[in-house]
């Protein structure tokens, strides 16, 4: 497609025509218009119907004090946003999202990178180990949450048994405001590091071996090789990984619900579980919509900024 358009370009250029009919003629000439007319509307329609309209609706509802029954009538302007910002649990949820991002970037990604560097080599059992580390990612979030709620159980759980071995009093990790978020963070790292590891391994396998050999010939040490050849090669993947980690943290919901449901005392809510707990399950559709709009703004501004600053070449 691209090549054909290129070959057409000189032809249209010689004729002194306004820019867009030329473009249009170009479209007509290689049937791109037909493609547009045929294939764009369904996608556009679906996108409008299920993405643009709901976003608009959420923004509209966020101006109402509305419980979801009948039509919204009680317009309260920006009060819902004020209520949201006044809710302590909202800031806790925001803090937790921040925590997840920090832990993802500082612990999860380095861990994934280190494992990837080890397992990208060919040796006996490498594939099996990769599978093993990737396994948690395949598991459904709800199932993971349930499994770990058993693991953390203070009476019968694995953690309790280990503690008992040392004769200590068993902790109820999910029942304390101090440890609940920590417990959730551990599960997040456990569940998603395999995914990032796989991304890194894929990138490492696409690496040109001659680069490494050239560096070796030049007498680079292992550390130098890593620092100046391998990691720079991985930069695009790392940027992608960071993007996934941050967006994933903003959307995190289904892992939190079976583990703690955001509790105790809202200490382990994420923004989305906060939206669900305080908006939907309380029938405060306006309030929930306001949270949704705030979350949307955070996500969109992050995605665009990141795209602009870090993902420009891709």
């Amino acid at each position, binding site marked *: 497609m691209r090549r054909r358009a290129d070959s057409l370009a000189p032809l249209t250029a010689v004729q002194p025509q306004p820019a867009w009919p030329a473009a249009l003629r170009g479209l007509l000439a290689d049937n791109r218009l037909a493609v547009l007319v045929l294939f764009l509307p369904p996608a556009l329609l679906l996108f409008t119907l299920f993405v643009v309209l709901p976003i608009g609706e959420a923004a509209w509802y966020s101006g109402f*004090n*509305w*419980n*979801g*029954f*009948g039509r919204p009538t009680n317009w309260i302007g920006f009060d819902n946003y004020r*209520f949201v910002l006044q809710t302590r649990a909202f800031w806790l949820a925001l803090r937790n999202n921040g925590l997840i991002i920090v832990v993802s970037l500082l612990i999860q990604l380095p861990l994934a990178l280190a494992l990837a560097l080890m397992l990208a080599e060919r040796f006996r059992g490498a594939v099996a180990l990769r599978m093993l580390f990737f396994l948690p990612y395949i598991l459904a979030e709800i199932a993971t949450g349930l499994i770990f709620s058993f693991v953390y159980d*203070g*009476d019968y759980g694995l953690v309790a048994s280990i503690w008992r071995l040392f004769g200590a*009093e*068993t*902790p*109820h990790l*999910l*029942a*304390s*405001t101090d440890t609940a978020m920590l417990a959730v963070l551990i599960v997040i790292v456990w569940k998603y590091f395999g995914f990032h590891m796989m991304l890194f391994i894929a990138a490492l396998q696409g690496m040109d071996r001659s680069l490494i050999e050239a560096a070796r010939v030049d007498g680079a040490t292992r550390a130098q090789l890593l620092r100046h050849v391998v990691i720079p090669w991985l930069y695009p993947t790392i940027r992608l990984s960071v993007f996934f980690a941050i967006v994933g943290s903003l959307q995190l919901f289904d892992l939190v619900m079976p583990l*703690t*449901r955001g*509790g*105790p*005392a*809202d200490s382990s809510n994420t923004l989305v579980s906060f939206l669900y707990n305080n908006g*939907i*399950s*309380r*029938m*405060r*559709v306006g309030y929930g919509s306001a949270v949704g709009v705030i979350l949307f703004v955070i996500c969109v501004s992050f995605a665009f900024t990141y795209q602009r600053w870090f993902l420009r070449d891709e």
Partner: protein
Amino acid sequence: MRWLDRLGLAVATLWLALGAANADTTVKWLHIEANPAQVKIWEEVARSYEAAHPGTRIEMQFLENEAYKAKLPTILQSKDRPNIIYSWAGGVLKSQIEAGVLEDITDQIKGYSDSLTPAALAAFSRDGRIYGLPTALSQVGFLYNKELMAKAKVDAAGIKTWDDLLAAVKTLKAAGVTPIVAGGADKWPLHFYWTHLAVRIGGKAAFDAALRGENGGFAGETFQKSGELFKQLVDLQPFQNGFLGFKNPQAVGYFGDGKAAMTLAISTVYHLQRALAADKKGLAEDQIGWFDFPMVPGGKGEPSDTLGGITGWLVTKGSPKETVDFLKFFVSKDVQTRLAAGNFIIPVVKGADAGLNNAFMKQIAANLSKSRYHQNFYDQSLGPSVGRVVNDVTAEIAGGSMAPKDAAEAIEAAWKQGN
């Protein structure tokens, strides 16, 4: 793949044909009852109604409690909504009535409505119009494990005041017994303490005044004091280890396993603990005792005042007339007597409590009939939004992260914000 489509089509056609042939009217009934033994009786009642009324089909649908609450607003917007839905009355019912999604059934149940306990029916009425039928009552109070109480030499019958309860907790702890088990992760089991204290301290007058916004509303003295007294209990660390991580079924099971001396619970837990205990047997009936929530000296509430639930069924707008007819059949003396005999419910139809065949259920029924002020669960009566704030703050008091005064003020703030 194609044969699968065809199969699907064939099944759909068959299903439509059957539906058309079988029933002229279908009454869709959405419930949240998780106890299979009770659902079985309901099914039988529905089948016998169908047998007596050819042309009518009763279709039962089940949703889990929390899922039901979350989906209900959407379900009610649909044209294909169920005809009969579950309700705890209170603030949620109020918003449903205001939204116009319920059928006014006052005229259809004229005469029949006299057979119901007036207080229970009143919960489903608003401005003299009736929107649903009550089906069961329950009371909140302390269930205790006789063996463990005896072990710590605590006389449960002697627990009459809040201070008695605090003393009992201390004695139990000293004897190495976990005094109280609570499902703190679900929060509402904890809100029983705070709300029942408010019932004892302020009585009906205080609650009504708070609703009108008088005396500082829910931030007023009564509700602050409820928090303070609850805090006295919390400070003794009466609950099992990690209680804030226990969901209610787990906590009920814990009590059934005989691991804690007391639990503040809905009267139905008396039976539920058996199903949820690790050995599926739980505590035998003669091992469990009951005492009413203790009094607060100087409180304005009567000893006979009760906290508990009034649950029932609502009819949605545009439902066929058979819906109400079936409900009348379902909430009839016969069926209620049968459910009472199974000890599933405290019935709301007059005379059906004759079916109760166990001393415990009879005692609860007597308490409720004596009660002149039966406070519906706060988290239901205050509506879905404020009610959950009550749950939140009581859980926070229990977790030590909120002062009683702030808790009361948070509820008042939520009340002022409205829905």
